[in-house]
């Protein structure tokens, strides 16, 4: 994966994901949802490969169908009955439509979060939180170190105790519970011991001796500023179109969805610009590379 967009400053990437996910969840307009879903799917393909996306589809498509059907079965609002269930309740066109778009929205959000997980690594999140509070960032970083370390130590102690017949998988049920408790107790003692060294090592390197700052691997550049302005602009235009009533979607009691006039088209274009921003970045970069190569 060589994705230009994920190399941006964490603040810019974070702003993008907040904007895109919020707008997707807020405005249930079919066109916006489909734009968002397509962009998210495309970005997942870039980040994790088409193959991975194919695997995601295996659970995403049944989920989409299941959600639409479920909503239609349990929600009977709407004015256009399609048929009646045996208990007399109507299955309506509106409920089916809403269920479908709601599941499109959820799928898009799931895919966006998948991208988020790849792009926003723990380092980037720490860098963001570090700006708010260096102590929170340190705390998170220490947790990220000590929790897996605990897990490894528990397994190692269990293996050691299994050698003297005291492992957590040896003996009857009561014996196993007792042995497991002992493994935990050793782990706790060990944790206290090793945290003494950690505390000394922190003190020795000046922890608490001065006001903390936070180290960051990332630099905020013009590119990041431009990205954030673009995001803000796209959000602004889309929101304006929605607020002015240009983009409008209603599902109950009857389905009314705004058409494609000048204003809605403007809003949709702005939203598409936002959603496809990562692809635009990559495309620009690919073009530059091609030009550079032909120059050689």
């Amino acid at each position: 994966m060589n994705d230009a967009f994920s190399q941006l400053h964490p603040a810019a990437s974070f702003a993008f994901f907040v904007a895109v996910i919020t707008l997707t969840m807020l405005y249930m307009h079919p066109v916006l949802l489909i734009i968002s879903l397509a962009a998210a799917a495309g970005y997942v393909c870039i980040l994790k490969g088409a193959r991975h996306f194919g695997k995601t589809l295996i659970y995403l498509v049944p989920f989409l169908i299941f959600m639409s059907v479920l909503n239609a079965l349990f929600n009977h609002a709407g004015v256009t009955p399609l048929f009646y269930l045996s208990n007399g309740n109507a299955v309506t066109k509106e409920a089916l439509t809403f269920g479908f778009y709601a599941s499109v929205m959820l799928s898009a959000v799931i895919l966006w979060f998948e991208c988020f997980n790849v792009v926003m690594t723990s380092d980037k999140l720490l860098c963001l939180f570090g700006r708010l509070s260096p102590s929170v960032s340190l705390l998170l970083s220490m947790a990220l170190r000590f929790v897996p370390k605990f897990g490894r130590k528990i397994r190692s102690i269990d293996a050691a105790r299994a050698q003297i017949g005291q492992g957590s998988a040896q003996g009857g049920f009561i014996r196993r519970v007792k042995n497991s408790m002992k493994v935990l107790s050793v782990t706790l003692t060990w944790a206290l011991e090793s945290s003494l060294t950690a505390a000394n090592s922190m003190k020795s390197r000046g922890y608490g001796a001065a006001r903390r700052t936070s180290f960051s691997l990332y630099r905020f550049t013009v590119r990041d500023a431009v990205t954030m302005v673009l995001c803000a602009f796209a959000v602004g235009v889309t929101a304006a179109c929605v607020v002015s009533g240009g983009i409008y979607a209603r599902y109950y009691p009857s389905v009314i969805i705004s058409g494609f006039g000048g204003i809605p088209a403007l809003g949709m274009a702005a939203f598409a610009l936002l959603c496809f921003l990562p692809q635009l970045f990559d495309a620009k970069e690919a073009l530059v590379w091609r030009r550079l190569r032909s120059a050689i």
Partner: protein
Amino acid sequence: MAAFEIRDLSFTYPNENKPALDNITMSIPEGRITLICGASGSGKSTLLRRLKTCLADHGKAEGDVLFFGKALDDIGQAEQARRIGFVFQHPDDQIVTDKVFHELAFGPESLGWDQARMRLAVAEMASYFGLDELFEKNVAELSGGQKQLINLASAAVLRPDVLILDEPTSQLDPIAAADFLGTLRKMSEDLGLTVILTEHRLEEALPMADMLAVLDEGRLIAFGEPKKTVMQVKNSAVFESMPAAVQIFAAVDGEGDAPLTVSDARAFIALRARTSVKGEQPSVETCPETAAELKNCWFRYEKNAPDILRGLSLTLHKGEIFALLGGNGSGKSTTAGLLSGRLKPYRGKVKTNGLRVAALPQDPRELFVKDTVLDELKELNPEEASLSHVTELLELEGVLSRHPFDISGGEQQRLALGKVLLTAPDVLLLDEPTKGMDGEFKRRFGELLSRLKAEGKTIFLVSHDIEFCAQCADCCALLFRGEIVCRSAPRKFFSGNFFYTTAAARLSRGMIENAVLTGEVIECLKQ
């Protein structure tokens, strides 16, 4: 100017009568490497920790410590943090954050440096230590040696005047340890950095030291240039940990400066050697009965991971001490895992003939759950007879009422071994049992293994410690890329090897044939 001026320093721990440090006066020169050695419990660590206020233990202290002419206690915490770097013994415990770069930045962050200054300091350090590859890695992915290097780098990133290291290589394998000490020496030479170091592995550390201080029960018994100082401590307990070259020199009453390196010692031996052959080792009667056997075993940790063992075959005879040697990642611990039944080969067979096999963990503390040593032993077998047998065998009588975490490292190891023995195993598996032990402890541990052997136990030993294996094993084997490339009795094994052999064999090669132990070289020189 002296980096540290220590005057009449005494220190007593709370509730103890005997002082841990007794009237120490010494002056640690600037820009030099000062090595402090002494047997376990001689007060090395206590002394080092008095050199940084925030680490000094609580207790009754007398005397003065001056840092570049100024009383240490009058220097602020932040200034001490910057100017005095400290590296601890356990590589893993002293790392605080999850990523290498964050660990490097920890000191600068704590002292509130701004971004530009931090960036430069961290970049400079990473480039000097060649950490580019590791920079964004998770610390959990690193080896012990790499971790300790990160610890050194994250102490050095604050640009200290003095670096203090408390047994930094005791948890590392010999190759990583030599790398670490090499880096330390380079730093000291490049930057004129003052280094204060305690070590028990003196074979490599002694030749690089400019000054040597020897502690014995809290007293400073010698201090000065290494090649002169070593001869002043001939009769103290720490002498057993000295390099083979020094021990041989002292034993044959050499005069003048002691040789510290292999090449110096060879020159000395060339002058003195009279006999040139050490007789063949009487071949040990091995019991033909097999205790355990690995037959053509293949093993890997994951389906798509590379093979660790490739068709390994190995026979353990009843009542022998078998030592398996080999580099990192050669599959030594994996072999022990197969024998213990913890791991299963995907091809090949493990036969233990119905014998009970038990392994001693590398960290003995993993077995401790009770408040006293006696309760620890009773946890497994409350029977009086076997209890008293084990306490006597392992010399644990003196510490039965102490807390398992308060006894010394060597005693902890014996206690853990006691717990394993109480489960009545026939075959004992020991993974790096001599890690972190000094010379005296090693000798006693070797004696203990012979006693166990006399009781009919079969012992399988995985180790990096060539000297220890040469001393106490009946059979040595070298593992390389998951296969055994050589297997024979220690004398034949080590005198046949060129690089992978004991210091004594390297010292005497070409002059005394067949000598692999320090004592043997001494014997030949004395004849």
